[in-house]
């Protein structure tokens, strides 16, 4: 899931008009909307979104927590999936299209899954092994299928060229050089089309977690329209797309060919699911507080804004339909290690930052807890790194320690380089930037704030030539193993190393940990590597984020689903 996050809280443009449109409050009809076991079938569930569309419904391109949970609940089945359960139990795996959680060979470099009977597409045809294979092959077409997870490329046993790029270039590539044979060997299908075998280039003891990502799910070749496939995907889940208009709405209706016997985890209560796009976040919050007419059966797709939190969480009438839970995301400021080369300078930046002020702006107690590393504190096997107690040479108060920071700069014997702070613009992140500039000024560090349009943000900061020395970021684990966090963010071979941290010792240990078949000791290795990178201030961890959400009075089955920090979409019902 998750992956990258642009800001502290998603925000939309707020027009003055919103003030007039939403100013009328509503009465509470007394229904506390608490979930009931079983749930009621029928009705229309509404999902209110500030986005102009689902970021990508294309299984191979979908890589944001909420969107993965949404697609998985309604349209896109995967080999395995996370359990629909409140709390940390949600991280447990259960089979979805596969009959079980997969069978590894001795060193976990080969995994075999058997498909259930009765898993069909919306036209009634059976999902086959070849279609899964075709789906996975799309990930390799990196110029067409952009933005998705790349675990298929890094894990499947396909030779790479001298530059380390895969020699297989996906199904759209016609040239002779395209190494189709290697791909055909990497994924094998049995004669009856019921068993799929993944041959990996290294031991991956938790590969059955990786296949919860929809990038390992099937696509019918004849329906594939390349980068436009996201507009009208073919469903194998309980619903199918009836209409999908950007900035307006996505309408899902029941898939008549979905067989509930093949899909025990998705009760599929409502008859219809409608996502309303392009709404103003403030008006979503107000609509859900009022919860009148259609809004009574609505949930919000993004977290609430900081300004309404106190109102929502002190109003006893809203009890039972408001949630304040840890999200999967750790928020951090990456320090570009190639721009700030001196480790004492990086430490000084971490020491000078007023983290407490940052947290207050983000929503105070609602924003979450101060972070001490990239592994989140609600993660299984999390251990504190001690970053703010010992790792930086002295205990650092939450407000920062300007004196010690200046001393670090002086001891480094070099002047601090110019510092620019890049962030995705929103009203809240502007305030946070102002606070950062101010707190660095206490250490005589001049920082220039550089707001970037949220839609272009990661495109710019992922380019080392374009980014500033400080880059705001957020990251959540893809599954319950810190192997999807620590090396992704901090190893020189990681896919999201915004800080360009490159420590040969760290890389070697990380590679060893990735191949460690014993998960508890692997977890221990990630904790140690996390602490190592923090002691060199590769990034400044700022918040273990909390999210707040509301559902309408008639929505049943709602809770925050831990693996994605999302609604458990497949479980939501409308209780009328």
């Amino acid at each position: 899931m998750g992956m990258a996050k642009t800001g502290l809280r998603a925000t939309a443009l707020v027009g003055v008009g919103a003030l007039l449109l939403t100013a009328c409050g509503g009465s509470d009809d007394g229904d506390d909307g608490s979930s009931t076991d079983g749930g009621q079938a029928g009705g229309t569930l509404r999902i209110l979104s500030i986005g102009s569309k689902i970021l990508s419904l294309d299984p191979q391109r979908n890589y944001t927590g909420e969107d993965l949970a949404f697609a998985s609940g309604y349209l896109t089945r995967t080999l395995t999936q996370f359990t629909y359960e409140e709390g940390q139990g949600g991280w447990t795996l259960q089979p979805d299209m596969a009959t079980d959680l997969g069978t590894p060979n001795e060193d976990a470099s080969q995994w075999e899954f058997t498909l259930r009977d009765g898993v069909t597409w919306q036209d009634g045809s059976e999902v086959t092994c070849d279609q899964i294979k075709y789906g996975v092959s799309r990930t390799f077409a990196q110029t067409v299928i952009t933005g998705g997870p790349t675990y298929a490329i890094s894990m499947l046993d396909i030779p790479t060229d001298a530059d380390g790029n895969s020699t297989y270039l996906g199904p759209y590539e016609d040239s002779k050089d395209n190494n189709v044979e290697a791909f055909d060997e990497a994924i094998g299908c049995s004669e009856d089309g019921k068993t799929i075998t993944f041959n990996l280039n290294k031991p991956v003891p938790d590969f059955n977690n990786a296949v919860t990502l929809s990038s390992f799910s099937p696509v019918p070749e004849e329906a594939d329209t390349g980068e436009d496939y996201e507009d009208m995907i073919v469903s194998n889940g309980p619903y199918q797309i009836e209409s999908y208009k950007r900035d307006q709405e996505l309408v899902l209706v029941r898939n008549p060919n979905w067989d509930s016997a093949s899909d025990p985890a998705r009760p599929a209560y409502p008859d219809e699911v409608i996502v309303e796009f392009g709404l103003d976040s403030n008006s979503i919050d107000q609509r859900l507080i009022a919860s009148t007419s259609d809004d009574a059966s609505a949930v919000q797709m993004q977290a609430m804004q900081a300004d309404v939190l106190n109102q929502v969480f002190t109003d006893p009438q809203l009890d039972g339909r408001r949630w304040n839970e840890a999200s999967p995301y750790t928020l951090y400021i990456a320090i570009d290690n190639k721009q700030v080369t001196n480790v004492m300078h990086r430490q000084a930046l971490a020491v000078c930052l007023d983290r407490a002020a940052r947290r207050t702006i983000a929503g105070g107690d609602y924003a979450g807890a101060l972070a001490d590393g990239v592994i989140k504190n609600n993660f299984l096997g999390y251990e504190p790194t001690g970053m703010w107690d010992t790792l930086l040479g002295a205990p650092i108060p939450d407000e920062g320690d300007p004196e010690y920071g200046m001393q670090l700069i002086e001891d480094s014997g070099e002047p601090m380089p110019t510092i620019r702070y890049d962030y995705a613009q929103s009203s809240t992140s502007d305030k946070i930037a102002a606070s950062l500039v101010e707190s660095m000024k206490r250490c005589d560090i001049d920082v220039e704030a550089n707001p970037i349009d949220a839609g272009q943000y990661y495109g710019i900061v992922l380019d080392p030539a374009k980014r500033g020395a400080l880059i705001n970021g957020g990251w959540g684990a893809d599954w319950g193993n810190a192997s999807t966090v620590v090396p992704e963010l901090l190893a020189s071979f990681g896919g999201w190393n915004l800080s360009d941290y490159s420590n040969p010792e760290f890389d070697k240990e990380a590679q060893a940990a990735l191949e460690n078949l014993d998960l508890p000791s692997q977890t221990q290795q990630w904790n140690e590597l996390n602490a190592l990178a923090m002691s060199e201030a590769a990034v400044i961890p700022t918040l273990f984020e909390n999210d707040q959400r509301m559902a309408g009075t008639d929505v049943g089955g709602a809770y925050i689903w831990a693996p994605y920090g999302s609604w458990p979409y497949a479980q939501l019902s409308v209780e009328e």
Partner: protein
Amino acid sequence: MSSPHFPSEVEERILEEVPSSTLPEGDPDKQIAGRSLTQLAWARLKRDHVAMVALVFIILLLLVAMFAPLLANLLNIDQYQPDRAVLDDATGGLPTGWLSSGISWDHPLGVEPGSGRDIAGMLLFGARISLLIAVTSTVLVVILGVAIGAATGYLGGRFDAVVGRTMDFILIFPLLLMLIALSDPLTQRIESWTGLAGNNSRIVYIIFVFVFFTWPYLARIVRGQVLSLREREFVESAVSMGSGSRRIIFKELIPNLWAPVIVYATLALPSFIAAEAALAFLGVGVVPPEVTWGKMLSDSVVYYTSVPTYLFIPGTLLFLVVLAFNLFGDSVRDALDPRAGRV
């Protein structure tokens, strides 16, 4: 109010009988006085109470903006230094006190939710940037609009055709879209050309776009005025005495154009303040920690229920400033010439 009628043709001096009512009772020196247009207009303006209140407000505002640092020192206000003591983490970072505003002796207008910055200080320094943009844009628009408008009107012919079509071309551009679309690339250009960094280049950019897309409006008004002026005797006599085009434009025409221009300027200035505020809503504007009034307003809108004063105070102020400039501009127009250029 009713506007006194006054001929639109502007002469060097106009004779008008001073109304006896304005003279002291029983003044033995009842006489015919010669008064300039300026004196007449000023006399009318002085009688207009609304205009006077607006003018005093505007002058005060300009003085406050000009001496903001001094004033901030005097009142012991710091717009950057957050006061975290008045914020409550348990309420999501809202200020404490009356209406969650954070209003106290230390913060007479309260603090910004979340950050704890003093709103009075932010307004004080925000006014500098907002007014700098509005005043500079207005001055540049007036200079460009008058010079080019007068030249096209007087010279006519091919020059008029070419410049006129260029103005039409500029006028058809949707200003707001251009502002947003060009914001990043042009700001970077300005940075590399002028060596200005950060906010300075952004302010220059906003002024540039405002001026570039606004001057043709004034130029068209001026051109229309010049078309009628150039047929008049004093211009013809200047021509017959052998004056060059430049002299006629600058010495004969432009001095007679200032009535519509002043009116235009007093109405353009508040529209630039409002436009800057609108831009802040669209994310084009200065970067933190600096603020403008528009930025404060756009940040505060979502707090209309939780911290109403945060929205109300900058909102009211912005409203009053734009209103004052508009009322004053209207009055100036009435005083100068009720028929010249309803802009």
